[in-house]
């Protein structure tokens, strides 16, 4: 090999080293990013896709009422106010308030719904029955228990009742399917009564009116004129 060719070879090798030194960190960053993206759960990816709700920015900001846990550990809810540009369309406004509810309060200890849960779809039938389709995380990540499952449903029902008067009943689906229970206890086969003022309620059992909880903040209350302990009252027939 002549010195001239040797120099050319050395120059080519040096160039390859320089290109490698520049490109390898970029490649490593890309690989790390790809790995990170893979770690994102399907639920999180779905959340990004489903949370973009078209809202007219011209909509006036209104004080939406959201119901999260009181933090007392006694299964009660407290009302929080959030200013949202709520749509005048009941389906869009339902999605807005439910997504805000799912996003959770500032204090994550007061969450009523799992952070990974996503509202996949929301429909409102002409008879006032809302169908809320949540991702599997609602069923798999809600703490198992009557109190915790009731709290989750109550927070959804009360938030809808407070912000979307057209919603009278609530049916919860998990990933498009009707399921027997939320997390092993609470019955999801029927609908939950949301707006008691607008719905003719089946006659209650005579002894069922005994107050179980304080009106207003307790999970067992929906409206002042409704017997406590009946929040998100399940119904069997539409």
């Amino acid at each position, binding site marked *: 090999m002549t010195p001239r060719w040797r120099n050319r070879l050395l120059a080519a090798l040096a160039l390859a080293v320089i290109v490698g030194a520049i490109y390898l960190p970029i490649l490593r960053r890309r690989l790390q990013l790809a790995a990170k993206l893979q770690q994102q759960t399907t639920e999180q990816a779905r959340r990004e896709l489903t949370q973009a709700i078209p809202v007219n920015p011209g909509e006036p900001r209104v004080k939406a009422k959201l119901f999260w846990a009181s933090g*007392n*550990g*006694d*299964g009660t809810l407290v009302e929080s106010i959030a200013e949202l540009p709520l749509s005048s369309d009941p389906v869009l406004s339902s999605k807005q308030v439910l997504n805000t509810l799912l996003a959770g309060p500032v204090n994550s200890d007061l969450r009523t719904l799992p952070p990974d849960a996503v509202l996949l779809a929301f429909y409102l039938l002409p008879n006032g029955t809302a169908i809320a389709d949540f991702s599997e995380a609602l069923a798999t990540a809600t*703490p*198992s*228990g*009557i*109190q*915790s499952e*009731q*709290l989750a*449903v109550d927070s959804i029902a009360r938030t809808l009742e407070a912000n979307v008067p057209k919603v009278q009943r609530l049916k919860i689906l998990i990933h498009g399917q009707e399921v*027997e*229970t939320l997390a*092993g*206890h*609470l*019955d999801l*086969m*029927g609908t*939950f009564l949301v707006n008691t003022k607008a719905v003719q*309620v*089946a*006659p*209650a*059992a*005579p*002894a*069922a009116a*005994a*107050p*179980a*909880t304080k009106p207003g903040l307790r999970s*067992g209350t929906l409206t002042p004129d409704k017997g406590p*302990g*009946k929040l*998100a*009252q*399940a*119904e*069997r*027939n539409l």
Partner: protein
Amino acid sequence: MLDPAHGGTDPGARGTGGMRESEIVLDFAAQVRRALESQGFQVIQTRQGNQNPSFDDRSAIANAQNGAVFVTLHIASTGLPGTARVYVNTDLPAMTDAAAGLIPWDRAQTPFQALSRRLGDLVQALLAQRFKGSPSAAQTAAVRQLRTTAAPAIAVEVSSVVVEDRADLDRMAPGVADAIAAGVAEFRPSYVVPTIAGGTR
């Protein structure tokens, strides 16, 4: 009827140190059973070991008995530790389509709702005396197990599996057992099996 909830592949609520609701309620059931038997009641359990009968299978055992009361036992994963709550089923629509003397399976609890409320309030009041911070009256919830049960039926849920030491829960078992047994005994004189459309059970 005593129903230790969950079992088999369904552990129920899971807590610190591998605590499983399905195992704890079985131990609670044994103590409740003794307390009820000491009051002269005959007790049937929906499961004796680590099996997981379906909701309907559990209800079927209860529905085959005449004059039974049904108590399903749970340990919560939330709530104030050291408290206990009684739940009765949410009000179900009246049975307008019931054939004479028959109760639709999926609304079997309907004719028993008032009785369940009375039983629940009695047991809850006794639990509140024993466990500070517990509600004074039974609460209402759409508990799946209760809906298909054709008997006065309550769910008793104790808080919770997140206690650091399993002994904290074990210490509650005698009080829970006494409250249930005393509540059922107090309920007994007022228990008249309701008349179903067209006849009695």
